[in-house]
């Protein structure tokens, strides 16, 4: 439970780490959109090359990025499987009972798999190179233009930060409460649905109590440190657009261009 890899930040000194979070956010969104437009293997080749370049620049050990893939293995197999077996096609390669594998099916499955892999690897670079605070700051700043229509950008960002900070703590807490109740003879694994739901009560009540207590203490601590929303607030890591940021955006646009070129093949 405590080893959740999503959103895990890998702090080190690299050009990608120092890139403005907003650029990284928009860049990631662009990357995902471009991926959806790929319709030729050359396009995946371009994307893979691009990704390799970014990973090299980010100085993140590749095994960390591959670890993120482990979590989607199931989805991958499922998605590829569905495409493999259920794509209607002309060129039947293999036929046994109700199983029919067509060339088109294989094509679709491999497209799907590549798209998913590149997507997950790409977006994990965002979370690995950007600390949650920078990420939320970036989101806040991107949402800021929506303030006139009453989108509470700052509050959303602060909520996200705190949620990210306390997810591991709450997971740990839950594990501890479960153990303690087991030591008191609680049984979570047997019985019908109703009994099982009832048996969650000894976990949920203490968990909520503790979450509320935490929230209360945290609010007090934040107030004690002069927190009062975004009134007159500054940032240590102020976001600014420098040459690197513009170059980054430029690179993304070139990447997009290349992807569209592969569509013409």
């Amino acid at each position: 439970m405590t080893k959740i890899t999503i959103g895990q930040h890998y702090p080190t000194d690299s050009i990608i780490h120092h890139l403005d979070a907003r650029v990284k956010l928009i860049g990631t969104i662009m990357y995902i959109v471009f991926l959806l437009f790929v319709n030729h293997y050359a396009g995946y080749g371009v994307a893979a090359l691009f990704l390799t370049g970014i990973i090299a620049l980010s100085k993140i050990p590749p095994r960390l990025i591959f670890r993120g893939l482990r979590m989607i293995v199931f989805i991958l197999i499922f998605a590829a499987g569905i495409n493999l077996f259920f794509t209607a096609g002309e060129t039947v390669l293999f036929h046994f009972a109700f199983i029919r594998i067509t060339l088109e099916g294989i094509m679709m499955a491999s497209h799907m798999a590549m798209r998913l892999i590149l997507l997950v690897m790409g977006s994990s670079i965002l979370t690995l190179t950007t600390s949650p605070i920078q990420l939320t700051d970036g989101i806040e700043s991107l949402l800021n233009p929506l303030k006139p229509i009453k989108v509470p950008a700052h509050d959303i960002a602060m909520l996200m930060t705190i949620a990210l900070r306390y997810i591991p703590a709450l997971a740990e807490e839950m594990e501890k409460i479960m153990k303690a109740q087991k030591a008191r003879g609680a049984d979570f694994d047997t019985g019908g649905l109703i009994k099982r739901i009832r048996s969650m009560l000894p976990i949920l009540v203490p968990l909520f109590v503790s979450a509320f207590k935490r929230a209360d203490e945290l609010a007090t601590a934040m107030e004690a440190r002069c927190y009062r929303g975004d009134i007159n607030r500054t940032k240590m890591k102020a976001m600014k657009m420098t040459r690197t940021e513009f170059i980054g955006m430029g690179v993304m646009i070139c990447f997009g261009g290349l992807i569209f070129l592969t569509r013409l093949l």
Partner: protein
Amino acid sequence: MKAQTNRLNPQPNEGAEETSPYIIELRQISHIYNEDSVFEKRAIDNVSLKIKAGEMVALIGHTGSGKSTLIQHLNALLKPSSGMVLINGKDIHTDKAKLKSIRQRVGLVFQYPEHQLFEAEVFKDVAFGPNQMGLTEEEVNTRVKSALEVVGLDESCYHKSPFELSGGQKRRAAIAGVLAMRPEILILDEPTAGLDPRGRDEILSQIKHMHTKLGLTIILVSHSMDDAARLTDRILVMNKGCIICDGTPIEVFAQGEMLKNIGLDVPQISSLMTCLHEKNSNLPTGIFSVEAAADAIMKLVRP
């Protein structure tokens, strides 16, 4: 794991092992978290330990020394990566169905146990454990009442919400929740953490009472050497997953320097006696109580 597969038929041995003089026996247990991964961490390293019925033992060590992991092996919340855990001479991992009965016999009170209270009334909360054991309502009621009496909570508390109690009372109610299962062995993880001196004294004297009056085998887990010395006559010191010291308080406290090096604090009196001993070797070391220290010093005055 090995123990389980090797002992396909444990019955023939059972009679012989019943006579084991030790209520708890650990045979070379190790526990490795995240085995075979980059995060592999050896939390318990080849620990063997024997505890007799009716003993009161303190287990001390700093945070992360492995003491919390160790005690979770005693009631089968954790399974050793290798080695065997025997309660009353029986390997507790031979029969899965009996885990519940092991957990009833080996009562484990976690750190800050008041965080696990969940019922609307104190009485109901304490009854949770016995109710899970499938006892009659009458039997549950007697057990709950006597458990609450042991921890010094009277009838006026029975129907209060746990959240109306004071910090010390909450903790005692939570301890009663484990006591009501009538365990033979009671393990308490840092029972005095975060309490004020008065609360600390109350809990400690009740633990002493459970040992002497109820005859429970007690393991007190603590990083407070003071608590350990005050209550027990055997202290186990853990560091980096190993038990590095096992002896009487006098023997253990005589090694003040070593204890400090592994991040424990020696009672002030104990450090003082070590300093005095350096000046005058007639004064003994290993003393930790004010009474004993005064006796020793007065001996110099009137030999």
